[in-house]
């Protein structure tokens, strides 16, 4: 937890927002919260780029934001992130560079998976009993102007995470030409298609129970419906929807007392809420009143954290393995052996907890490629693991796990000689250390029969001896150990051998 003033800026597709807070010993004092409506995404979603005119206008807004940063003497303690309005523009690099040059603000593009993850952490810290929701099945939605980012959690697993191009402003742009009188039908059909996409990704039989919204669009709905608690009921959303679905924008604006920009996206926003409620099968949607920049500020200032992250990552990885039909018994045995070897060999590998989790993930997933084909399954495993997106887990982590799966059989050295010779030495060494352990662990259950019950590891002068206690003679394990153990010697400079003893002999 950090003390001091921290600012967060969010360049959204329909507004720029800034939140400045002061943190003292875990207590937060909000100093400023600014919103400047500006539809930067309008260009991006219709033309694919941000017009120069809008680059200049955005610069002017951010100059004002910079003045605020200066006023609070915020030099580096800030995070400025851009979402889909910038992320999807072809001239995003120019936009970011121009802003840096003109205002000194360093903008970063936030990937959808990270965006929804930060919102998830915010929600988790804001809603009591959220831990129960994660077990029951919960859909977290960030319905923004450009995208609808969704995270689905069930049984403490992240079973889906993605940003789909169904944001309210984008929908408005796509169906702008359809007559107003029937436009709502197009929205309904289109958003149902989004649920269909989620459904095909998470697989059948995953019933959900809760729906939580963490969107910037909430403010508009709060100002209209004025809920006392942090939830909307389906009936009131349906009533609002029915009352506006064929009404001109200006009439909506006047009757509800909202801004023109808000009035034009109210209908697609409501369609999205109602469709997602129907998808989850709930009559309420809960929300947090925390704004995204506020959550950003709390997150980057390390004033909120993701409790249970490692457990969830582990559950999610097992879930992925099951999706690709892994041999779960073998995976569990390999994990047990790999973890035990990692601990016992700590004097020689000097790796930490993060690397241990990498090894665990690779032990679970290294054979998933069999689902595509048993020939070259390690290459298929590599491909499948590379495509994993677990919110909060860095890309580099996933990549290392994929390399471990790739090299868990075959000739490790030739991969480095022929394909990965550009990797820095530290990275090569990390992979070799972990893959050496993984291959030993995998070899010790080569027959997938759990023949080895337990083992001890002795680091002796000139060699390491694994003394295995077995139920039966592990012929295949011995062979595989010898074959796969070679890389261990090449990496650590010490041979590793396995002695076997039959239990109850």
């Amino acid at each position, binding site marked *: 937890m950090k003390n001091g003033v921290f600012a967060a800026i969010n360049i959204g597709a329909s507004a720029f927002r800034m939140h400045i807070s002061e943190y003292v010993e875990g207590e937060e004092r909000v100093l400023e919260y600014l919103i400047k409506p500006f539809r930067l995404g309008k260009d991006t979603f219709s033309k694919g780029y941000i017009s120069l005119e809008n680059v200049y206008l955005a610069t002017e807004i951010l100059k004002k934001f910079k003045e605020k940063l200066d006023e609070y003497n915020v030099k580096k303690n800030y995070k400025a992130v851009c979402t889909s309005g910038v992320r999807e523009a072809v001239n995003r690099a120019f936009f970011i560079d121009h802003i840096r040059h003109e205002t000194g603000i360093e903008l970063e593009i936030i990937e959808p998976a990270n965006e929804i993850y930060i919102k998830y952490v915010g929600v988790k810290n804001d809603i009591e009993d959220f831990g129960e929701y994660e077990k029951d099945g919960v859909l977290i939605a960030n319905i923004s102007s450009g995208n609808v980012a969704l995270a689905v959690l069930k049984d403490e697993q992240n079973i889906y995470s*993605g*940003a*789909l191009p169904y944001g309210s402003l984008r929908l408005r742009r*796509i*169906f702008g*030409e*359809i007559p107003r009188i*029937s436009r709502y*039908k*197009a929205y309904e*059909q*289109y958003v*149902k*298609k989004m649920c*269909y*996409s*989620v459904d*095909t*990704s998470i*697989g059948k039989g995953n019933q959900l129970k809760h729906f939580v919204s963490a969107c910037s669009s909430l403010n508009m709905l709060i100002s209209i419906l004025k809920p006392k608690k942090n939830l909307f009921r389906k009936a009131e959303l349906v009533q609002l929807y029915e009352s506006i679905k064929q009404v001109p924008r200006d009439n909506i604006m006047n009757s509800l007392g909202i801004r023109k920009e808000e009035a034009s996206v109210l209908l697609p926003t409501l369609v999205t809420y109602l469709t997602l409620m129907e998808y989850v099968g709930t009559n309420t949607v809960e929300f947090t009143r925390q704004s995204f920049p506020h959550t950003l500020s709390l997150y980057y200032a390390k004033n909120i954290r993701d409790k249970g992250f490692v457990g969830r990552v582990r559950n999610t990885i097992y879930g992925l393995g099951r*999706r690709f*039909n892994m041999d779960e018994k073998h995976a569990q045995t390999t994990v047990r052996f790999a973890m035990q070897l990692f601990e016992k060999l700590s004097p020689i590998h000097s790796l930490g907890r993060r690397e241990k989790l990498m090894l665990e993930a690779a032990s679970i997933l290294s054979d998933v490629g*069999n689902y*595509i*084909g*048993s*020939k*070259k399954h390690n290459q*298929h495993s590599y*491909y*499948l693991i590379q*495509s*994993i*997106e677990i919110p909060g887990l860095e890309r580099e982590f996933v990549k290392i796990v994929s390399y471990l799966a790739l090299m868990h059989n075959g000739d490790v050295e030739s991969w480095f000689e022929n394909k990965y010779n550009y990797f820095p030495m530290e990275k090569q060494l990390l992979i070799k250390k972990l893959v050496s352990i993984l291959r030993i662990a995998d070899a010790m259950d080569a*027959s*997938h*029969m759990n023949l080895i019950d337990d083992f001890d590891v002795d680091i002796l002068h000139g060699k390491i001896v694994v003394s295995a206690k077995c139920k039966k003679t592990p*012929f*295949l394990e011995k062979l595989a150990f010898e074959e796969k153990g070679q890389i261990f010697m090449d990496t650590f400079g010490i041979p590793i051998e396995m002695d076997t003893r039959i239990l109850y002999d």
Partner: protein
Amino acid sequence: MGTGESFNVAVVDIGSNSLRLQISEVKDKSYKILEDYKEMLRLGDSIYTQGYFTPEVIDRIVETMKGVKKLAESKDCKGIRAVATAAFREADNLVETLIRVEDECGIQIEVISGEEEARLTYLAATANFELSNRKAVVVDIGGGSTEYTIINNGKLESSISLPLGCNRLMREFFETDPPTSAMLLKMKEHIIQTQKEVGLGRDIDMVICTGGSMNNIAVVKHNRDKVVRDSNVKYVERNFLKKFIKSLGQKSYKERVKTEGLEERRGDLILPAAIQSDLVLNETGARGFYTLYGGLRSGLTIDTINKLGIELPFQNNTENIRFSRLMEIGNKFDFDEPSAVHVRNLAKMLYDGLKDELDLDGRDWIILEAASLLRDVGKHITYTKHHKHSYYLIKHSELVGYSASEVELISNVARYHRKSPPKESHADFTGLVEEEQTKVLKLVAILRVAIALDRSHKGFIESIDVCIKENEVVITAKQTGDIAMEIRDFQLKKELLDTLLNKSVVLV
């Protein structure tokens, strides 16, 4: 068997050269291979010289079967079905060997006839090739015998087992290393005379060769061409085969095994196998042959599954094995079958209406058909970038009835079915020759419109008519519901088709 239930089966094929174990997972009327294990026993070496298995050879068989049993048990297989072919058939001490294996391993080996071998190979061929409207010969070259099977329009017409196994031929005719020209000629003459019983003729338009030696020839060829394709089916042109025979015929065993991709333990067997297949090509006039990896044991797996009361989809649809396999792959990756089939039907109507304008013909439809059915399989990995995942999964799935280059085209059409166009940096697209790139774009243009016409996944557009006019192409849709979304998406997705036709495409 209900949805999701699965079990494993293990089959063992004990040939004259090698012993092969195949473990497969059977699930929802489809199966996938989990394990393919090989041990080069070379039983023919003792049978074709002494006529019986020596005690050392029997020990080797027993030890190997023990290992096989262990592997099968580790995969929770429902028993093991082991069959043995020519070497066992001809062993004087057959019964003694069978008893020893049963006593020590608990496995009963079935010794099958040459005709049964041919039937199993036929089963494998029907699972991997589209044989309707064709006359094909499957030549399964083993160590002791060669099984010739004639398949006419997908049905088994005749089969015969001839004593032309490569180990047997090698021992009978090659007295020196390398063999002299006279030895080669004598062997060729023997093969030609023996082969006459098969009745090979010019009406045969497809030659499929199976057996380890034939697969090894295909591997050598693909290594030479630097074509890395991990496929059960490979094609070898006769031109290559002739050069291969000429080059190997002049080399000794030691020189032969230096050939890239050639298995050391086949260095002496591969020449008789290559010569025999060349003589088949000569008789039939075919320009090359297909190889089928795992011929006999694939058939054995299918037969074993059949014996458990399960008929695989392609077996009740011999008219269209290719289509059945596409559906099987789609189901494996949980595709939305009704939607995939509807888009396929719309794509067919569009294709029929536009093929002349776009200069498409021949096998272009079946490429589009596969892409329209499998375009979304990548969603099984993630929704984001699913078009890229579809490319990968299609490329690495065993599509039946398509050549390697056609699979590449299908994968590319699926890759671009969304909105992003091919770019210079896309090596998988730029790797295609210009003509193929153009074909991919034409098929993509049709597919995008077909998808748009079922954007809501409701099948509201039942059928379409395509009318080509001077300056425009009019698509008339017969609708059964509100198609606002389809109209909107059509406007967004027709651009490529407009450009390629140089006409405006309109939907009415």
